[in-house]
């Protein structure tokens, strides 16, 4: 569904993404993991057209989208849920959602979609008239996802959905990601620093380090991989070996 070949992205003078090739098959959840500054967010922005790739090919459903404008890419079925949610704080929950349907402009359809989103996230329905800025972090994340869904995407780019959330809330968000795939057949490319929660929901993953792909594999393979464990599961790993040492 989504295929990247040799994508380079420069962020100012920094060569943030280097020759990255990856693919996401229809219905797959794929995680991009890596430390801060590995180039994950830059790569997502390049896919959604917010950032320009300086070289390489990005294909969505067999169509080259590397030169397309972001709004055009949304209309093709690729929605980006940005890092830190970026909901419109002063607007109500409902207006935020309607803005997500901006690319379609069909009020009636949009309202029907909104009901579906309310069914999925009842808490948003309860707070539909409140300002988005008044929501908790987890609720804002649900709103950001809901807003992206309003464009009826076939593929969702999710940037750090768990960032700054309590573990329980984070779990809830990931549960919804899995449900979206299961119920709507949505394809998801997920960026996450928390490798463990990302790989728990993803089928496969790519590990980015200083802009390069270092390892790729199924989630199970990555969880067993040394580079992944050392760099991104470090603490849990130590705790685990400590426990084994005492046994």
């Amino acid at each position, binding site marked *: 569904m989504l295929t990247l*070949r040799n994508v380079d992205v420069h962020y100012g003078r920094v060569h943030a993404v280097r020759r990255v*090739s990856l693919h996401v098959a229809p219905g797959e959840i794929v995680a991009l993991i890596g430390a801060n500054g590995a180039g994950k967010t830059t790569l997502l922005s390049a896919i959604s057209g917010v950032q320009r790739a300086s070289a390489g090919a990005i294909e969505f459903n067999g169509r080259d989208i590397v030169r397309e404008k972001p709004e055009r890419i949304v209309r093709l079925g690729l929605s980006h849920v940005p890092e830190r949610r970026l909901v419109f704080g002063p607007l109500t929950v409902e207006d935020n959602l309607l803005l997500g349907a901006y690319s379609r402009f069909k009020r009636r359809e949009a309202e029907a979609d909104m009901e579906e989103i309310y069914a999925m996230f009842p808490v948003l329905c309860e707070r539909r008239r409140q300002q988005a800025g008044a929501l908790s972090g987890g609720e804002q994340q649900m709103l950001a996802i809901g807003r992206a869904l309003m464009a009826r995407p076939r593929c969702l780019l999710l940037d750090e959905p768990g960032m700054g959330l309590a573990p329980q809330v984070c779990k809830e968000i990931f549960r919804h990601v899995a449900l979206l795939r299961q119920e709507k057949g949505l394809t998801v490319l997920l960026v996450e620093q928390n490798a463990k929660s990302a790989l728990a929901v993803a089928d496969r993953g*790519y590990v980015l380090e200083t802009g390069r792909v*270092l*390892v790729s594999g199924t989630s199970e*393979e990555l969880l067993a991989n040394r580079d992944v464990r050392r760099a991104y599961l470090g603490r849990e790993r130590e705790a685990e070996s400590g426990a084994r040492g005492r046994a």
Partner: protein
Amino acid sequence: MRECFEPALETMDRRELAQVQLERLQATLNRVARNVPLYRRRFAERDIDPEAFADLADVRRLPFTTKADLREAYPYGLFAVPLREVVRLHASSGTSGKPVVVGYTRNDIKTWSRLVARILVAAGANRDDLVQIALGYGLFTGGIGFHYGAEALGAAVIPASSGGTRRQVAIMQDYRTTVFVATPSYALYLADTLAAMDVNVNALSLRFGLFGAETWTEAMRAAIEDRLKLTATDNYGLSEIMGPGVAGECQMKAGMHVSEDHFLIEIVHPVTGEPLPDGEEGELVITTLTKEAFPMIRFRTGDITRILPEPCACGRTMRRIGRIVGRSDDMLIVRGVNVFPSRVESLLLEAEGVTPNYRIVLTRSGALDEALVEVEPTEELLFDRVAEHQVLVDRIERRFASELGVGIAVRLVEPGSLARNVRGKTIRVVDQRGLGKDA
């Protein structure tokens, strides 16, 4: 479509496969450049930027890894992970020089098991089978490689290991073995033993046999199938790359499917190292795409074969390689034509009336190479059918000319007259041309 162990992967669209290969090649290059000093040094010396690889064909710009590199790195110099990540070690036999030690991470073992399960299923096996593995266990990858693969498949494994032929026969009878894994020469030896023990082969339960680790011929396949009453397939692997499971034949018996999602294959000229087009015979070069502990970049296998690019009727999209016809280190160049002693041998085996005891004598008359094959005929032909001698010689000479592309004279010599080595085999090649090896 025939059964596959991993159907979605084994019948993957070739374009998707190219994408997967590119992704994995790039990640492998990034990893070896970071973790393996030999590769880091080589890339630096040749000014190779592992990030500049935008296409699978770019792999041709990388230097080869040779068996000599592996020996020099003995024992752990080419490992890409620290030893604490390694859960298994194997070693290839050190027939010439030091052995080569190879390591596997937990993921490597899982991948290996799945790839062996693929060739078992391709060969006809399924989870209801009883798989008798008559390959050596231990440092050699053959026995344990098949063992894990058969377990991954869910079959019942009989780890018989090699040797003890009468015991193998007893196991085969009593346990009702359905799949037999061995070398082709051992399969024939077992057939002799079955005959000597007067065992009714039709009363055995054998269905399929997987034979590899040696060069063999269609004539041997026919003999094995006939004498053991099973369907025999060829398979290919080598410790330096993984062990068994690199490639295996499906039921079409027309070449071995390479698991190309894990191995990138090329065929190069055995002398110049130049890439050769699909279909042409040359040396097989393999780059691993998923190995963690012991990745290999453009490893020269020394095995001579060719890529069969046409799609296979079984539905697998993974390309096939033909039989291994020889070793590049055995290759002779006669009047500019590459000749493999193993090829000469298989052509001799097809001719009725001669034994596998032969030698190739190379001489030079003026600027021209002269090649002569001296072969010991069977006693029966020698004494009872003298009139047929010249007919046989002519027939073999014509076969050589058409199959090898160069004229080689044939002479029948007295049985037992050719010099033997310590293992009782005739010395295969006598080169009297006075050329250096590189000439």
